[in-house]
């Protein structure tokens, strides 16, 4: 139980994929222009992360260490493609909203990062928990960034206007705003951690 708690804390705060490990930044910067995008990307990534973590922790003992990376990439890419095929065949509504995020996940290094750093060294159950907590951490980081950028850059939250007459700064939804927001968030996080110590 204590370990689960530790894993969840790691995913959300201590080892937050975006703000501490700084992995998966490419989709992070691209997607955090609106809360809706951030949320969907987070959910889709979490799903794939859990799946690939579980599969890799199962097959890890059969894989020689020297060829593990190509094997992981094959596993992840196949898993993502399978998900995409299923979604576009049986869940057309979900496909419309989530569809464009799924191909982005293949190249999301959070998935490969967790496979290498965690799932290849731990059991199935722990890997599953790690996948869930890292996924939640990723989703939360995306949503906080997206919330700030969507509000300042478009005066919107979840596609709804917020303050009448507020002139948004469009730079915030361009890449500049992404870097700015991420820098400020990391600074705040480090400040809180320093205070704690």
């Amino acid at each position: 139980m204590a370990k689960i708690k530790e894993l969840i804390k790691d995913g959300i705060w201590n080892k937050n994929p975006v703000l501490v490990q700084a992995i998966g930044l490419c989709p992070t910067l691209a997607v955090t222009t609106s809360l809706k995008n951030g949320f969907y990307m987070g959910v889709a990534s979490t799903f794939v992360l859990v799946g690939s973590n579980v599969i890799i922790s199962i097959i890890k003992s059969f894989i020689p260490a020297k060829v593990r990376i190509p094997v992981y990439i094959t596993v992840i890419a196949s898993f993502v493609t399978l998900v995409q095929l299923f979604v576009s065949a049986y869940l057309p509504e979900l496909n419309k909203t989530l569809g464009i995020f799924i191909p982005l996940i293949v190249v999301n290094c959070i998935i490969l990062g967790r496979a290498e750093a965690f799932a290849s060294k731990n059991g199935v159950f722990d890997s599953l928990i790690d996948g869930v907590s890292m996924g939640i951490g990723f989703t939360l980081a995306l949503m906080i960034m997206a919330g700030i950028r969507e509000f300042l850059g478009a005066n919107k939250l979840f596609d709804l206007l917020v303050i009448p007459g507020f002139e948004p700064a469009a730079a915030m939804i361009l890449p500049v705003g992404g870097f700015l927001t991420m820098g400020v968030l990391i600074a705040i996080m480090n400040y809180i951690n320093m205070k704690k110590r």
Partner: protein
Amino acid sequence: MNKEMLNNILKFSLVLVIVGMVAGGSLSFVYLKTKSKIEEQQKKEELAAKNVIFKDKGYVFKKIKKEGIEYEEVYKNGKLEGYLFKAYGPGYSSVIVTLVGVDTNFNIKGIVILSQAETPGLGARIKEVKSDKYIFNFWKKKSENTKPWFEEQFEGLNALSLKLIKGGKEYKDLDDKAKEKLKKKNEITALSGATISSNAVLSSIKAKADSLYKILKK
């Protein structure tokens, strides 16, 4: 080469071959299983898109293939009303497929982007719907306009001489007067930060319309 090295090479290749085979096998299995379903969904979407472009009832579509170009003739009460065709434009990260309906003078009746996988937040905004709803009253008003604004601005323009303008305000933020001006000049506003995606849609329509126009003139 000693024996151990040889063994290792064999072992590594064997593992990679097995993993590749399992992955490839399961992928092709699922692909075959879902193929017909996916095609069915695409057909459904296309049908819905046709109804968006040619709004009234009573239109008849006739599939034609001429000189390697596929298009559909659109009839109403036995009279040729226009053409329907698909345009494929290489965007930033995907091929953008657009269904285009034109009248016999190649004035656009409407377009619907059928599939795209552009960057969310940038190029994917070609499907963005303009919303005026506020966060404190979103449950009151129902959204009246569900058509993406990027698609909407093509309506009424001539498909053969479309022009893209970039750097200015986006169509959705313009007032009616400025919109009218754009229409007269046959111009389309690009999405800010996504010129490649915007241009892919525009130039694919233009190119396809152009080749269709030439074939029909013969």
